[in-house]
C-alpha cells in the first residue's frame, strides 16, 4: 500500500518533478495537482513545492494564496491531512495563514543557493516523526526570500510549543532564531525553506533529505487510516 501524494502546481512552480521523483524513489505515488482545482480528494498528503508561483509578483505566495486550490488545501489541513510547503510552498502557506510569520528578503540581499547544515529540532511533525531530534542534515537551500520573521509573541509560542521543527546550524539568511522550518498547532502542516527533494540521491550530493520524505510518507499513510477509519463501535 503506497502513500499517494498530491503535488500542487501553480503557474511558475518549478520543483514539482523533483518532489515526485523523490517520493517515487521511496515507493510512494505522486500526481500533479493543478492550482485551478477546487477539490483535492484521494491523496494522503499534499506537497506545495518550490518555484515562483505566479511569478512571485507582489510578494512570494501573495497571489498563489488566492488560487482556487488553496481553499481545498486549507480544508485538507483542517481535517488533519499532512501538508508540506517547501521553499516557495512555505511562502505560500504563510501568506495563506496556514502557518504564522512571513518570509522576507535574505539578510545581505543575496540569492542563496548552496547546501546548508540543518538541525532537526522536533521529531513531532509530519515531516520529522521518527527522526531523532538533534540530527544534522545536509540539504540545499535556493532562495532570495527565506528570512523567516514573526512577532515576539508568535516566536515565544513557536518555541514553547516546540513548533520550530528545523533550524540552520549557521544561519545563512537572517531568519529569526535560525528558523528553517516550522509546523502548525496540529503539527500536520510544515513549511521549510531547504529542499529535501534535492538531497534525495547520491548523484545530487546528499541523500539526507530522504529521512524527511520518508517521514512524510509514513505520516501520509497513517493519516489515511485515521481519516478513513470506520466509526468506532460504542
Amino acid at each position, binding site marked *: 500500500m503506497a502513500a499517494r501524494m498530491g503535488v500542487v502546481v501553480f503557474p511558475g512552480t518549478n520543483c514539482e518533478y523533483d518532489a515526485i521523483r523523490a517520493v517515487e524513489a521511496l515507493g510512494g505515488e505522486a500526481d500533479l495537482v493543478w492550482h485551478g482545482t477546487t477539490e483535492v480528494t484521494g491523496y494522503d498528503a499534499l506537497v506545495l513545492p518550490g518555484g515562483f508561483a505566479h511569478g512571485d509578483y507582489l510578494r512570494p505566495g*501573495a497571489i498563489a494564496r*488566492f488560487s482556487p486550490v488553496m481553499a481545498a488545501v486549507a480544508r485538507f489541513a483542517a481535517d488533519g491531512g499532512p501538508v508540506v510547503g517547501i521553499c516557495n510552498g512555505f511562502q505560500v502557506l504563510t501568506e495563506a495563514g496556514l502557518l*504564522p510569520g*512571513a518570509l522576507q528578503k535574505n539578510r545581505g540581499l543575496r540569492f542563496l543557493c548552496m547546501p546548508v547544515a540543518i538541525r532537526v529540532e522536533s521529531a513531532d511533525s509530519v515531516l520529522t516523526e521518527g527522526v531523532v531530534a538533534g540530527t544534522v542534515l545536509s540539504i540545499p537551500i535556493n532562495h532570495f526570500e527565506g528570512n523567516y520573521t514573526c512577532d515576539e509573541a508568535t516566536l515565544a509560542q513557536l518555541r514553547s510549543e516546540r513548533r520550530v521543527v528545523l533550524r540552520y546550524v549557521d544561519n545563512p539568511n537572517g531568519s529569526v532564531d535560525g528558523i528553517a522550518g516550522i509546523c502548525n498547532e496540529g503539527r500536520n502542516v510544515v513549511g521549510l525553506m531547504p529542499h529535501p527533494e534535492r538531497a534525495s540521491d547520491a548523484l545530487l550530493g546528499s541523500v539526507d533529505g530522504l529521512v524527511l520524505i520518508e517521514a512524510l510518507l509514513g505520516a501520509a499513510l497513517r493519516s489515511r487510516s485515521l481519516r478513513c477509519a470506520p466509526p468506532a463501535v460504542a
Partner: protein
Amino acid sequence: MAPTQRFTLLVEVQLRAGISDPQGATIERALPGIGLDGVSRVRAGKAFRFELSADDEAAALLLGTQVAERVLANPVIEDATVTVTGPAVAG
C-alpha cells in the same frame, strides 16, 4: 445601483516599524559612497496606483483599504497607507 463615480487611489506599503529592511539598509549604506551624506532611516516600500468605482470618497477609501489590507500588504510585516488622490483620469 452600481456606483457611478470613479476615483484614483494611492496605496503605499511599508515594512512595519521594527521589521528589518535589508533593501533600505543597503541603499542607505550606498549613499555616502557617491557623496550623498547625512541620509538616514531609509525604508524601502511599494506604491500602487489604481482606479475604482464608488458612490463617494468615503466609500472609495473603504474599498481601497480592503484592497490594501487583503492583497497589497502582508499584515504580518507591512502597513498600508491609503489615499484617495482625486477623481479618475478621463479616458
